[in-house]
């Protein structure tokens, strides 16, 4: 039985406190997920500068080699990654939902899937491969989870709720090999005309009272907000029915 070809596409992030280059948190989770797949042949690939010290952190997670498609760090990585994926034909592509320190648009999984004709699932926290079938657990807001079934080939973007990546070990990081492949540099012409500036603090939203008269302003400031429905003088059975109907109408209970 031939082994499942899995590729983890990694990028370089910036440390939240020091700003130094490090593993991108979500990409590291994607590598961790790939390492946890039984019977899979995992490859790591990066498009950018092979001398970046953060790439060694990925090798420290246990894989012997990291393929680097050499191009300037500011270039567009998608064409290079696509070219590589078309040649290597991985059946499962793992990557973080969004980068950390670049444009961070979160478009990479969708662009790759669109160009390759793969299915795409985002915010994955767990995957299971059975024959050619994938069972993916997707994280939803408020700690909820959803099961998604897909068939290979597939792009799976890993979310922040996925298991934390293992620590990078020093020895394997030194021993690991960075295999450099030159690619045609793709210049992001559109983005060169965009203005980049330090993040400005966003204005806090103020509570605005849209009252036209002094009396309305006074009422808005003093009145207790209300207007809810009140049920009184009913039996407990009827009261329970009212509560249940309300819960059902607002879809708080699904059963």
């Amino acid at each position, binding site marked *: 039985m031939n082994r499942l070809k899995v590729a983890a596409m990694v990028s370089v992030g910036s440390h939240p406190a020091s700003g130094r280059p490090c593993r991108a948190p979500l990409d590291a989770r994607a590598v961790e997920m790939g390492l946890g797949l039984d019977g899979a042949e995992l490859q790591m690939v990066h498009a950018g500068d092979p001398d970046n010290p953060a790439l060694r952190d990925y090798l420290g997670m246990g894989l012997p080699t990291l393929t680097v498609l050499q191009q300037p760090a500011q270039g567009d990585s998608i064409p290079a990654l696509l070219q590589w994926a078309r040649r290597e034909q991985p059946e499962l592509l793992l990557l973080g939902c969004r980068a950390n320190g670049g444009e961070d648009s979160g478009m990479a999984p969708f662009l790759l899937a669109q160009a390759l004709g793969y299915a795409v699932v985002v915010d994955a926290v767990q995957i299971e491969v059975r024959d050619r079938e994938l069972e993916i657990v997707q994280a939803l807001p408020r700690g909820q989870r959803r099961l998604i079934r897909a068939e290979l080939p597939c792009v799976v973007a890993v979310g922040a709720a996925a298991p934390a990546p293992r620590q990078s070990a020093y020895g394997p990081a030194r021993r690991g090999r960075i295999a450099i492949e030159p690619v045609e540099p793709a210049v992001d012409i559109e983005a060169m005309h965009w203005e980049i500036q330090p993040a400005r603090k966003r204005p806090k*939203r103020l509570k605005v009272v849209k009252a036209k008269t002094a009396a309305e302003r006074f009422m808005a400031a003093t009145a207790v907000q209300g207007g809810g429905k009140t049920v009184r003088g009913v039996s407990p059975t009827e009261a329970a029915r009212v509560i249940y109907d309300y819960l059902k109408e607002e879809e708080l209970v699904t059963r």
Partner: protein
Amino acid sequence: MSDSQRPTRKRLDPRETELGQVGNSDRRRINRGQPQPIATAKRAGQRVRRDPRAERSISAGSAGRQRVSLRGLVTTGAETITTSVETGPRMVRIDEPAFLVSVVPDAPSGRLTGHDRDLLGVARSLADAGGGAVLMILFGPLKDDPGAAGADRVMTFEGPGFAGYAPELRSAAVIDAAAQTASRHLLFPDSAEGGGELGRRVAAQLGERPATGAWRVDPERTTCRIAAGKQDQVRPTPRVLLVAAEAADPVSDALYEARPLPTPEVVGAVLLEDGGRIAVDPDDVALAEAEFIVSAGNGVQDWDSFHQLATRLGAAEAGSRVVVDAGFIPRFRQVGATGTLVTARGYLAFGISGAPQHLQGITQCDHVIAVNTELGCDMMKRASLSVVGDAQAIMPELIRLVEVEGEQA
């Protein structure tokens, strides 16, 4: 020698220096520029004065004593007259818009979120700047008023294919709708509720480069937060925008038409199958993130029923400070100023009177249901549904009802 007799130094009159020849007259006057027309109006006695007696005789249609209250001028003992004119929201109708701005709100379970309303505010600013209109694209019915939220047109895709998790068919539908209406912009909320994913899918399929995390949008330029929140990117406003929360104020003072538009037939390849929600133990989720909370206060004595009800409803358990201090609920499940500030969509409170510290903890809850023996307490005023009754009697009835309904379903 007295002071009056002392010889004084000859002083200079400052006006003397300013006097000059003004106009054609021979008289020397201080030159202050152009003569002021207001002075002539005043001299002519044109000032309009109020006549309070006349005003009062007009406003008081019938006999009765007049007094001025906070609500305006009121006549007691007769029909009430309010001087402030009751103006409803401004009605807006755009029949032939120059272009359309399409908005795809999340609207989970048919209700617009705060993020959705902010997004519609952005859409309105883009549309109003050039005489355009806002098209709201919905999947399934909306319980809120789309016109009050700012939609001129509404397109609702309904059918089993769009229900649940269907990002592929939905993105195909959005692309078809945008093509049919030739929308100038496509706006999505950059949220985890599905808008972020749908918007990126649509952008990838259209081959557009979207602005993501956009927080300042005008017709020419868009500012996006990039580089893990450390930088801003200013770029020309693209066709597809994924807008951050609070990027604009929601529409509040106008009512738009919300005219329904016919939906195109949608065909799209579906590669993903929705396996449904996975049951998550509500107590594993952090209380601040829980979606539905059942909370107990001092009015609860029947703790077996309380725990059973929470399990049956699939809700997280919580309590007020009193029951936590008494040891019935663990400290990390306390709601309020000294506990957790919760963001649940639903909050079902049994026997909680609503101390200010507790109400601070539930300010972000959308649907508060209070069960209490006393109607006048603050919790009942805060609640969207208040039930006067004993928690010990209502809880077992509710458990029974949930069981019966669960069997029928």
